[in-house]
């Protein structure tokens, strides 16, 4: 993918989710690479505020014209807020995956789980290795 955007302030999963840590909270979304692979997103299904998930558990589904993909929570936690704007404007996932198209805000249950995630540079090389 040309001109792939990567936010240096996020941590990443191998399934192309990102998390931006703010204290003991985190904002979660999917990466620019993920939205490019999915192509036009037509629907985003989000969890309910108050739901809790383990690390790696499915918490959302992003449906594109090509597929419906499960989205996994990068670290375990409780849902504090969901991005309701995506209900009416799923195309934001394609337009601004690291910004307007954040999916959920969570209370991180165990900060040490962040250690299992990739930093921006590691994620960049990981994605480049996938494209070859």
């Amino acid at each position: 993918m040309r001109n792939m955007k990567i936010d240096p302030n996020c941590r990443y999963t191998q399934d192309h989710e990102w998390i931006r840590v703010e204290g003991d909270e985190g904002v979660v979304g999917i990466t620019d690479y993920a939205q490019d692979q999915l192509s036009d997103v037509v629907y985003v299904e989000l969890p309910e505020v108050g739901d809790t998930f383990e690390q790696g558990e499915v918490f959302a589904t992003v449906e594109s014209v090509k597929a419906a993909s499960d989205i996994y929570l990068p670290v375990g936690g409780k849902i504090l807020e969901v991005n309701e704007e995506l209900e009416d404007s799923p195309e934001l996932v394609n337009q601004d995956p690291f910004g307007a198209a954040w999916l959920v805000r969570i209370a991180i249950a165990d900060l040490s789980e962040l250690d299992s995630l990739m930093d921006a540079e590691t994620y960049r090389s990981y994605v480049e290795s996938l494209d070859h």
Partner: protein
Amino acid sequence: MSYIPHTEADRAEMLAAIGVARVEDLFHDVPAACRFPTLNLPEPLSEMEILAELEAMSEENLDVGHYPCFLGAGAYHHYVPRVVDHLLSRSEFYTAYTPYQPEISQGTLQSIFEYQSMICALTGMEVANASHYDGATSTAEAVIMALSVGRGKRRRVILSPTLHPEYRAVVRTYTRGMELEIVGDEPALNTDLEALISLLDPNTACLIVQTPNFFGQIEDLTGLADRVHAVGAMLIVVTEPVSLGLLRPPGDYGADIVVGEGQGLGNGLNFGGPYLGFFACREKDVRKMAGRLVGQTVDAEGRRGFVLTLSTREQHIRREKATSNICTNEALCALAMAIHLAALGKTGLRTLAELCYHKAHYAAGRIASLEGYRVWNDRPFFHEFVVHCPAPVVAINDYLLEEWGLIGGYDLERDYPHLANHMLLCVTEVIRRQEIEALVEALDEARKEVAA
């Protein structure tokens, strides 16, 4: 002539590839006693001989064309206009396969779209799928959809005891192993809606009622949706399409999912099927709906066209996460229903429903006047009603058939042990007045002959 293309060499090669010596080894896990049972079959016959034998057997069957049928209980005998079979058997339609390719399937896709539109109009709902196997499986799929809308966290399913007993059994089969709490239809039969409503709790995924219910009675469901929605559950209404020519569509009183058996329109009384399950829901829940869905769209040049839509719910894309592992629809049966409905038209369907209603009520009134018979009349009914008989239903039915050539009603004791001697009778438009008179006379005689 052999119809099996594999040679011995082919077989040896395949066995070697998977690492077994003999075909028999593949059945190792089947208990030995069950492995190769001896079949007690007669000697082979020629095609001509076997045809004669099968024809002789089939002629022993009685059919509703020659014997007036007062049996319903979920399968209904209506007059199917000849145009249905004529159009259905055209080669353009006569295939069971799902039209994946819109480029070559516009006619089939449009016919399914028309069917879906008719189901929406009948039920008062926003979206209908391209059908399921039968009323029982569409009911079970509705339960699974409600569980999914409840994100799998709500585990209680409330079934009305007056929901068709076979539908209740299929719901249990489909959800076996899901550790649900299925309540409401315990043997202690309480047909009072308030009793079902009292079972609603925050763990409830859905409440399922049938109207007209299994006893033919029309349930007053006004206000029920609000009670169900108050705990965040879904209201599933199982209904019968001909009755909707006369009765309020469930969408009008807040149903979230409407399902039922569509056989009565366009399709015959086939033992074991194929039947036709219709399924309709609200647009907001469409992504949780099972089954195929045809949508109307426009092509690059702005021309109207039809395609399978929202396929991301389905197993060929979502694999094990699909809304259902059964996406098979009953396209030909659905087409038969659509043609029958189109042939009837709006006023024709109403006339058909009125004929059924009035004939059934005439029959019920006549039977109620007989000594020894009591007709349930505490609730309004459509084209079926319950009669308390002076003798076991099996004995009365044998008498009706053998002495009068009439096919009697359904023995309710089969599913409701406390309803011994209770018969469920059905009268549709195909029953003539003199046949009703014959039934009344036969029942009167049965009291003397059978009960004595």
